[in-house]
């Protein structure tokens, strides 16, 4: 699953940099320069699910917005289908948005509270001149059905929906124009556990059905592991490790990746106990440490880490890492995965899963 | 402590313009001559005066031993210096008043002769006012306004704009025994209700221009005293006769329409309603106390039927015009009463209220059909009439022009005897009553309120407050 046949790059980020502030600000004086994204490169292949993980503030959202050119990069470029989208005009870019769409993190704030769901979904169709009148209405109904909402909900307003339903609306809106690339910026982290699973399943189904390429931004490693093909780990504006999913989880090379995996609470009561925890907080992107940016928290840091910025290098095919010591680190302890479930439990779970198909309408 | 309705303007008699300023000057400065309550000229700094040379020379004998506040002695040279300043100062407002003076000659230290270009009967009256006030010539090199140095019974102490002017007794005044207050404070309190409240609560001893509507309650208060006298001014309606395009109305074009308007107004009722009957209804510009008042012409009575008949004759049974009104409540009240009265004769008056500056501007620019106007009045009758109705007169906003009127009024200027002048005024008055460029309505009275303890105040039709012999019991 790791390298889809006919490996064909749909999107390529090349040395992307985004700095905020630094300019003269009217009120607060010289704002500190924030290096939100600092030289990030990767390729996304057609049809795969590419994940970007990292702690809060490491630049994931900024990267996502750069890819869609919702903000202008400070340096670097983004190629979509081989064409540089950072160089085209605003109107061309607007037209291109038909092809690449975004699902936002917060289903509460990302839908205009004063538009009906129908209007929200019809809007992209209208602005791209894709359908009008009766046809448009049918398309809206279609899309709503596809994301598991009854079409008559088109008349309602976002606040009348639960979080999960709203996220479906957000997905419907992103899919309305029939895009080829969809970026989800933490599309499920605002949702409850039980709802989260619904949305993840939906995304997977839609991806398969429509042949989408997905870029998922997340901080929940469990979700990532479940859904992604390849994963990039970010720390303070940089990619520190990039690998296929299984390679990353089973043989992480970067110490930060180790600790990220170790920090996940495992829903297995017996598994609690000693593990390697990171000390301290991530430094501010306004004043990133010199050398390896992780050295301030790294349990293995050596002198070289403080002075030299490690480059991303491939240690195995398709597995790159930015760590001076990658070869010398002790392997990560195996993650506890499952307990042997009692037969009764397994039986119950099967009963539960098989009892009813995927829900169509959330309201009863 | 005296409450004034407005804040005086510049305290330089040669530049000053306001009425309240004159009240202050009366305490601060002496003038050559003065007028008494019967409007006769009485000596002040000049002990006597004579007219000679066919009315072209005016000679004053001056009082001896008079000193200015700065100690400079007052003499003929000082008079000459003052008159020259009044004529020459760029910002002087007295120029037109004394335009007839060609030169001032010092005959001897206590005699001064004014040479005139032509006989000028109103000149004496001017000299009984600001034009005749004497400033210390020594103070001319500095701006006078901020600290005027005169020779009056009180000297200037301080002024806080919009608040107060404080004077203090001048110890070397030639008549110092008649002035009983060590300190006089003029306070500016524009709102008449508040002014009265201040008098009642003891912050003032006297105030000028009590609102007519407050007279009743002030009279009911035993601790207060009210004095009033019909003043020199008049109130009326001036009609745009020939000042620009807006003169083109039935009112402006046809004197019968103006007569009808005049007849439709019940002047008696007007003064009763608005002024508690304290103001006098009138049909002419001179106060009834003036020797020039034409007794053969009593205040016109209302006659709606006749007004209607006149309108019919003029072919405008129903018409409407716009009357400009100042935005003070009293003016509006008057205007609304007139409006109500006129409507009964079929005349529809639209009111346009304006603040003062706008009103003045449109008046001079001819941007009006009719205006409710008033004139504070002058001692000399000429001041109440000549410049308003003669062709090219300085304040002739109606642009009324009638050679017969011009002739009579110009003639009245070059004779000094009252009877001869009255004949001219009567003749002009007769024509004006026909033509009615200005419809005279009533004569306002000056109303003063003071503490009942205040004694010796003599109301004078000129509205001034003279402090001689005034004291607090």
């Amino acid at each position, binding site marked *: 699953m790791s390298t889809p046949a006919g490996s064909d790059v749909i999107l390529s980020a090349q040395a992307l940099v985004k700095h905020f502030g630094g300019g003269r600000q*009217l*009120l*607060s*004086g010289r704002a500190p320069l924030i290096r939100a994204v600092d030289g990030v490169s990767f390729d996304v292949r057609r049809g795969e699910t590419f994940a970007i993980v990292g702690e809060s503030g490491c630049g994931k959202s900024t990267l996502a917005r750069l890819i869609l050119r919702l903000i202008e990069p400070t340096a670097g470029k983004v190629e979509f289908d081989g064409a540089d989208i950072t160089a085209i005009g605003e109107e061309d870019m607007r037209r291109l948005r038909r092809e690449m769409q975004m699902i936002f993190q917060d289903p509460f704030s990302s839908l205009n509270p004063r538009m009906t769901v129908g209007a929200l979904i019809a809007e992209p169709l209208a602005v791209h001149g894709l359908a009008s009148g009766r046809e448009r209405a049918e398309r809206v109904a279609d899309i709503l059905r596809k994301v598991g909402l009854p079409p008559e909900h088109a008349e309602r307003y976002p606040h009348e929906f639960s979080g999960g339903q709203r996220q479906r609306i957000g997905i419907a809106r992103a899919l309305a124009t029939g895009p080829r690339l969809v970026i989800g910026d933490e599309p499920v982290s605002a949702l409850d556990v039980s709802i989260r699973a619904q949305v993840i399943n939906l995304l997977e189904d839609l991806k398969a059905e429509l042949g989408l390429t997905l870029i998922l931004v997340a901080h929940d490693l469990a979700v990532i592991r479940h859904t992604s093909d390849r994963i990039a780990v970010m720390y303070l504006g940089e990619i520190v490790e990039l690998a296929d999913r299984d390679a990353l989880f089973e043989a992480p090379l970067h110490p930060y990746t180790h600790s990220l995996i170790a920090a996940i609470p495992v829903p297995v009561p017996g598994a609690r106990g000693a593990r390697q925890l990171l000390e301290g907080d991530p430094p501010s992107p306004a004043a990133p440490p010199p050398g390896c940016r992780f050295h301030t928290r790294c349990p293995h840091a050596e002198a070289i880490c403080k002075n030299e910025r490690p480059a991303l290098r491939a240690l195995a095919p398709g597995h790159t890492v930015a760590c001076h010591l990658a070869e010398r680190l002790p392997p990560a302890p195996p993650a506890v995965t499952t307990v042997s479930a009692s037969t009764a439990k397994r039986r119950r779970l099967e009963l539960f899963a098989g009892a009813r198909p995927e829900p169509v309408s959330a309201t009863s | 402590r005296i409450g004034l309705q407005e*804040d005086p*303007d*510049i305290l*330089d008699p040669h*530049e000053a*313009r*306001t009425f309240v300023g004159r009240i202050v000057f009366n305490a601060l400065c002496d003038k050559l001559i003065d007028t008494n309550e019967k409007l006769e000229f009485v000596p002040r700094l000049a002990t006597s005066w004579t007219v000679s040379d066919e009315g072209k020379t005016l000679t004053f004998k001056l009082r001896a031993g008079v000193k200015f506040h700065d100690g400079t002695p007052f003499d003929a040279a000082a008079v000459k210096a003052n008159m020259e300043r009044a004529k020459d100062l*760029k*910002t002087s*407002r007295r*120029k*037109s008043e004394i335009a007839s003076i060609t030169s001032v000659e010092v005959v001897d230290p206590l005699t001064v002769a004014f040479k005139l270009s032509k006989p000028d009967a109103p000149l004496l009256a001017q000299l009984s006012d600001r034009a005749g006030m004497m400033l210390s010539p020594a103070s001319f090199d500095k*701006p006078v*306004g*901020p600290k005027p140095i005169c020779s009056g019974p009180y000297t200037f102490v301080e002024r*806080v*704009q*919009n*608040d*107060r002017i404080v004077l203090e007794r001048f110890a070397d005044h030639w008549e110092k025994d008649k002035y009983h207050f060590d300190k006089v404070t003029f*306070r*500016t*309190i*524009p*709102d008449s*209700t*508040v002014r009265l*409240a*201040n008098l*009642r*609560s*003891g*912050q003032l001893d006297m105030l000028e221009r009590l609102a007519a509507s407050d007279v009743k309650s002030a009279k009911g208060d035993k601790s207060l005293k009210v004095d009033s006298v019909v003043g020199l001014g008049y109130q009326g309606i001036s009609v745009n006769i020939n000042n620009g395009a807006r003169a083109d109305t039935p009112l402006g074009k046809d004197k019968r329409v103006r007569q009808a308007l005049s007849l439709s107004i019940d002047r008696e009722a007007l003064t009763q309603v608005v002024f508690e009957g304290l103001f006098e209804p009138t049909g002419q510009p001179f106060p009834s106390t003036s020797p020039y008042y034409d007794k053969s012409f009593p205040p016109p009575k209302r006659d709606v039927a006749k007004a209607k008949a006149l309108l019919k004759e003029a072919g405008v049974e129903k018409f409407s015009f716009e009357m400009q009104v100042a935005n003070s409540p009293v003016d509006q009240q008057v205007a609304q009463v007139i409006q109500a009265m006129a409507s009964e004769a079929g005349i529809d008056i639209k009111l346009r209220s304006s*603040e*003062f*500056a*706008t009103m*003045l*501007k*449109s008046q*001079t620019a001819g941007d009006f059909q009719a205006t409710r106007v008033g*004139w*504070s009045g002058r001692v000399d009758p000429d001041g109440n009439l000549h410049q308003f109705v003669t062709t090219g007169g*300085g*304040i002739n906003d109606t642009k009324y022009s009638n050679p017969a009127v011009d002739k009579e009024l110009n003639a009245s200027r070059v004779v000094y005897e009252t009877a001869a002048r009255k004949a001219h005024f009567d003749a002009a008055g007769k024509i004006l009553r026909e033509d009615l460029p200005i419809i005279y309505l009533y004569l306002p009275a000056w109303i003063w309120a003071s503490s009942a303890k205040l004694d010796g105040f003599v109301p004078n039709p000129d509205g001034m407050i003279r402090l001689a012999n005034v004291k607090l019991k």
Partner: protein
Amino acid sequence: MWSLILRRLLVAIPTIFLVMVFVFILQRMLPGDPLLVMAGEERDPAVLEELRKLYGFDRSVPVQFLYWLREIASGNFGSSLRTGAPVTELIGQTLPVTIQLAVASLIIALLIGIPTGVLAAVKKGTWLDYVANAISLSGLSIPNFWLGIILILFVSVNLRWLPASGFVSIFENPVEAFRTTIMPAFVLGSGLAATLMRHTRSAMLEVLRLDYVRTARAKGLLEPAVVLKHALRNALVPIVTLSTLLFGQLLAGAVLTEQVFTIPGFGKLIVDAVFNRDYGVVQGVVLCTAIAFILMNLIADVLYIVINPRLRTA
């Protein structure tokens, strides 16, 4: 902080320039002629013409504006057409008066507005809240001159407790100053108190539902401490800045009250100048209020930073 102040002052320059342009244009838009007004009854066309030349009113408006700019740049604010007094002197005389009045009314407004606002917020939805709201709204909608005259009639004329009008500086005679200032300050302050009360109320309501108030309660603090220490302290931040802005407004906005109580203040100066078309004074005064306004805005910003630790280190 200093650089903030400096920058704000730099930004103020174009604003002030625009104010000058506006006031110049606005004034010339007004019908009426300063000289005519000055002349009053005694207007003589020849004299007026001469004066017009003397004051430069015969020149075109842009030329007059440039001329005025040059004068201002050299520190000369000109003088009053009406009284001949220098504009700086007029401002110097009236501004302290109005400042005394404004400070007094602000104090009264704060003393009334904040406690009632806090009370209304804490007792939200009870009759106390409604009463406080109704009273404050009345305070907001009763015209100042009306309240003023009623107070004068009642307190000064009937009861003879306080002088009906006048002004005494606090530095001359504090007792008299108090007696003359308290009534007008109350009249002015009543409207402000209403504004402050309403802002205090909503700020308190906003703050009272914040998490840290709950934290304070979780510590076992008693209600008065929670409200007065933890909540009010934070609710005050916007109120203090609001107060400085209100203070700026008071300088020019006290006209009617000043008129009623015959206080020779700034508002009166402005209005008289406008009515008399005393161009020089209007220009000077508006310039002065604009500067005061901008200064107050600046002070508000600075205060905001000073009392708000979140911004202090920025």
